[in-house]
């Protein structure tokens, strides 16, 4: 039912990546640096969180990994070198509103080359896996925020991507739903051993989810430091915040974060 675990599952290597955005002013086109010389790698099955002040380019970095933003320099390699498909989970659910829950997942599979029949069967299985077997024929507008997020996660999971890229994926949910979806996601990961890069501005969320937290500087973003999170698994999106050592890790991430702009001025 679920993607079979691939022993040679790809990890991710980001080497000296810089991204500049063209900015159009009235006079001329100039380039604004967003990400500057970032290098890091992610082992297969590892969960890496990236935190940083707003505007540090962490979302841009994620989009660059997904191939949505062209690199100015540097390289991004996926371990296997073959599967460069990524599963992207956005802050919004980013589901096609005119397509049913099943249709959204089927589309991801069809784009990956599956036949219509295969896509339909696999979409059913995936929806059952995320506990939404009864929602297959419903449109996103008929689902709750938490259900939509689960469909979005199922969609990203659909074609067994090289890496899961998550951009503030839970931040638009209300506190209670966030805990439910967060725990659901953690249990899903425990099964699938998926490699994840998770961008967030929420320090606690980063610590509670990740094996490693990368802290970025002000834009143009660089990696300031990395903090390894040795908390035991399985974790709980909420309860793990109260285990020994969590406070200390959280404090270390907070201290590593550059001061906010307001305080500098």
């Amino acid at each position, binding site marked *: 039912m679920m993607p079979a675990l691939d022993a040679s599952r790809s990890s991710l290597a980001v080497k000296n990546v810089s991204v500049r955005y063209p900015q159009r002013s009235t006079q001329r086109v100039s380039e604004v640096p967003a990400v500057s010389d970032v290098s890091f790698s992610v082992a297969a099955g590892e969960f890496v969180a990236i935190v940083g002040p707003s505007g540090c380019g962490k979302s841009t970095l994620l989009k660059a990994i997904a191939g949505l933003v062209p690199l100015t320099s540097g390289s991004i390699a996926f371990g296997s070198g073959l599967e460069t498909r990524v599963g992207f989970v956005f802050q919004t659910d980013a589901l096609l509103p005119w397509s049913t829950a099943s249709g959204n997942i089927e589309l991801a599979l069809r*784009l990956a080359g599956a036949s219509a029949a295969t896509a339909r069967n696999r979409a059913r299985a995936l929806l059952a896996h995320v506990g939404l077997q009864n929602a297959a024929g419903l449109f996103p507008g008929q689902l709750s925020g938490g259900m939509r997020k689960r469909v979005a996660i199922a969609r990203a999971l659909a074609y067994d991507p090289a890496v899961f890229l998550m951009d503030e994926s839970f931040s638009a949910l209300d506190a209670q739903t966030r805990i439910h979806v967060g725990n659901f996601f953690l249990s899903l990961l425990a099964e699938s051993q998926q490699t994840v890069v998770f961008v967030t501005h929420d320090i606690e969320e980063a610590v509670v989810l990740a094996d490693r937290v990368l802290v970025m500087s002000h834009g143009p973003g660089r990696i300031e430091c990395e903090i390894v999170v040795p908390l035991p698994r399985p974790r709980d999106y909420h309860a793990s915040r109260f285990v020994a050592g969590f406070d200390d890790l959280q404090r270390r991430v907070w201290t590593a974060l550059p001061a906010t702009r307001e305080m500098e001025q």
Partner: protein
Amino acid sequence: MKRDTSSGQGITDYLLRLSPRLASWMLALVLIVIWQIAADTVPGIVSLASSPLLVADRLMTMAENGELWRNLLPTLEETVGGLFLGLMVGICGGVLMARSRFAATVLDPYVIGINGLPRVALGPFFVVWFGIGILSKVLLAVSIVFVVVLFNTREGIESIDRDLVDALRSMRASRWQMLRHVVIPSLIPWLLAATKIGIGLALTGAVVGELVGASAGLGWYITNSLNVIDMTGAVTALLVMAIVAMVMYYGVLLIERRLLAWRPQARM
């Protein structure tokens, strides 16, 4: 909880609650009855506004002797043709201007100029240039319709959800797949809205063209009737126009119900 609708509330209130659609029909009935009574009692009304019975009688006669179809058909062709071509021109122009900054900058003043121009004033020109046949009316309708479609298309393209585009790009969708799964479905509500407005505009273009110069059509029938002081004929043609507009509008509404079934507010 059930509410007792009959107690202490007027009969109209009860009927309104029963069915707004029924109330709508009843309003039409009331207006027709008032019109008929006025025509029967107030001297001179018949020569100014005819009467429902006279109009109904004329409608039957016209349907029997073929006059109705002879005049309805050209107007229908002009309206539908103008609407269709107006949609085509507007969509192409809107896509072009949304996709190319160059095209938008070059064409913007012209679109704004055409939009501000009372295009019914083009009617006489079009009849001189393109003759008294169907072509001049279709083009007049197009000139009125396309601007609305163009504006809506541009706005629709600009309001496409960036996250949906990114989501499909992250799944490595081709340009065609992006068009099919994101761009076109995003534009459909905007184009349906433009079409609903466009029906009335296309009919205006067609009829104004006919008023200026034609040899058939509902507009022509009005001018012709008024020339011989046949008020009943003119009013009948007007009524047929209203029916045409309503039928087309409800047709679009039916399509909309199907296409926008995913929208919570469209599912009623």
